[in-house]
């Protein structure tokens, strides 16, 4: 009981209650996050519905190859995250630490690829707010596609992926601090809860990408 009392916050009756509160709190927060990204997806849907050809034209300029690799990287990171939770639940400190660090590494890989991708776009003259460098092919221009509408796609692309990357950075910070804790093998019961709820967050960020990928990279390929 002494080990339990050291990790139980004063206002909870038992660890069960603390675990329940932490899990529910994270789910409520994820609902908030879903609606936060939901505003961006709503804007995307409205504009794509208004100017479908412009969105498809813009999408074809994204790097499908890098986007696909990144999707794979994130899916693998979700697996390592799930394995980290598994190890933490069974109090396997070394395994938990290793999987946490692996997840951070995969997250870093994702962000580096993303930076390379952004870099390519910038050298092509495509950056948030750019219109002058967007050239619409004549056959699409004949169908009423304007550079403005193409630029709107990039506004949403950069805002959505930028916010997504920010969420990943926050997640990686959380995972790193957890890895330090588990490596020291301290606070195991409570640390397992922390790994679990941080895992929920990490999976959520993955889910956002699961929708970003087809909606931004995979349209207009035919």
């Amino acid at each position, binding site marked *: 009981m002494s080990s339990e009392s050291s990790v139980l*916050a*004063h*206002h909870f*009756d038992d660890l069960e*209650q603390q675990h*329940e*509160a932490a899990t*529910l*709190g994270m789910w*409520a*927060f994820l*609902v*908030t*996050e*879903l*609606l*936060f*990204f*939901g*505003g*961006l997806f*709503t*804007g995307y849907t*409205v*504009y794509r519905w*208004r*100017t479908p050809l*412009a969105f498809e034209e813009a999408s074809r300029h994204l790097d499908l190859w890098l986007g696909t690799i990144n999707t794979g990287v994130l899916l693998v990171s979700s697996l390592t995250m799930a394995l980290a939770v598994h190890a933490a639940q069974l109090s396997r400190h070394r395994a938990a630490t290793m999987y946490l660090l692996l997840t951070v590494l995969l997250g870093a890989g994702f962000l580096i690829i993303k930076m390379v991708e952004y870099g390519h776009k910038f050298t092509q003259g495509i950056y*948030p*707010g750019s*219109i002058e460098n967007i050239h619409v092919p004549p056959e699409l221009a004949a169908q009423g596609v*304007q550079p*403005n*509408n193409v*630029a*709107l796609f990039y*506004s*949403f692309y*950069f*805002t959505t992926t930028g916010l997504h990357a920010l969420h990943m950075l926050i997640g990686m910070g959380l995972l790193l601090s957890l890895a330090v804790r588990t490596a020291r093998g301290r606070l195991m019961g409570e640390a397992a809860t922390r790994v679990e709820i941080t895992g929920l967050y990490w999976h959520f960020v993955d889910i956002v990408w699961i929708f970003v990928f087809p909606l931004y990279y995979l349209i207009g390929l035919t």
Partner: protein
Amino acid sequence: MSLAPLSLHKPNYLSVSNTLRSWLLTTDHKRIAILFLISITFFFFIGGFAAVLMRLELMTPHADVVDKEAYNRLFTIHGVVLIFFFLVPSIPGVLGNFLIPIMIGARDMAFPRLNLASWYLYLIGGIIVLTSILIGGADTGWTFYTPYSSVYSNSAVFTMAVGVFVAGFSSILTGLNFIVTTHTMRAPGMTWFRLPLFIWSHYATALIMILGTPVLAIAVLMVAVERMGVGIFDPALGGDPILFQHLFWFYSHPAVYIMVLPAFGVISELVTCFSRKRIFGYTFVAAASLAIAVLGFLVWGHHMFVSGQSAYASMVFSIISFTIAVPSGIKVLNWTATIYKGRVWLTTPMLYAFGFIGLFTIGGVTGLFLAAMAIDVHVHDTYFVIAHFHYIMVGGTVMAYLGGIHFWWPKMTGRMYPEGWAVFSAILIFVGFNLTFFPQFLVGYLGMPRRYHIYPEEYQALNILSTAGASILGIGYLFPFTYLLWSLRRGPRAESNPWDAAGLEWQTTSPPPTFNFEKTPIVTQEAYAYELVSQEDDLPGRPNPTEGEIPVLDAPPQEDQP
């Protein structure tokens, strides 16, 4: 008074420590509530001061106090500060934070540090908004409509938007804490249907906070992004400004219920206590809170009838808007039925509750006028709309807030306020409020548009009435501010239960100890078990109806016993 020495000897949450550090780093929900109380009062007077200047300007049809640019900034400050920094966090931040853990028999919120973070985010957001005001202020109105806000306005819109964004996260964290606390922290025996209605309405409020606020956050973030030159809503870039209105009102209509649902909760507590009766139709009142929270998300388009929104979408929004009147009506009906044949004790909080019920009803019914598309087209953006939502926000929320502050003041501070002054200012505020805003219904119906500093001569008489009322209202607000401060040192010490109220918060000392209860209470009965105490004739702490000057309306005895 006999209990006073007891609260002197045992340390309470206020007396445990008095260093600045102990306040700024506190995780005690009661101290955080006091922090909110102080900062919210500060912003109330900032927003109120902007209103004073506006009403002064509107005394004459000409520009004599401020010019049009300054006037635009004044109504923006008034709206942004009073909505995001007073009304939204007022009752949840102060009374909700203080009471929710005590009412459910918990030692603290589920996430005490998150609770403190919520206050700091509020404060940081507030400082950013004050900075925006100091560097010139925004002139977009609190609604930040695009493309004016995002492209054309030459004012400090960006800073203002960032302030609102940060304050939004304060609101999200508060809501998250309320939800988790209600789910996981209830004392043994405190089942959902034994919860005070204050908890139900705060739970419904918290749902709106976590479901709606993120959409506001992303909407103002998009405005900020567009101000940096990235096209999103600007029609010149192929965008659609109405998309912003959709995202904005997806939050901001439910936000009306963030402001008024906690007020409903306060009124349910006041009405039962001072009628000495159980609430009429507990389940209906509780369910109505949740129904309002859900339906509130389906009606936002009624703000956009003249925006260019599809007429068919407007019809759907209009019809759903009417249905919101049903749960709101249930509440008003049930409070009235609770008072009916109750032993009404006309204290200051009860006066505010009466004021609330009447004014909210007027505000709600005029809301139905506005939900009808044809009438809305006629009175859209006129003072009719201004009067309507001030009846809800000021006549409703502020009345309930003041009523709640008076009701729980003894619990929060351990001191009683001076009843005579309090009754006087409650009446003053009621009169001043009606004189301010009722003429605005008339002048709005006659066609005076909102957000102008000048107007045609024929509207002057009604505007002078409104300004006269506003000065009474303004002075009325200064009274509670003064005597409540005075009572902190000079007020008589409060007993633990000065109103003989039911509810767990009255079973602990005034002020409560840091962990709220000596030991975790075990709940064995439903809320509002007033018939258990109201049978006795001389209740402790309550003036005897035959000697006191406070009138007591007793039900006719022949109807009590057939």
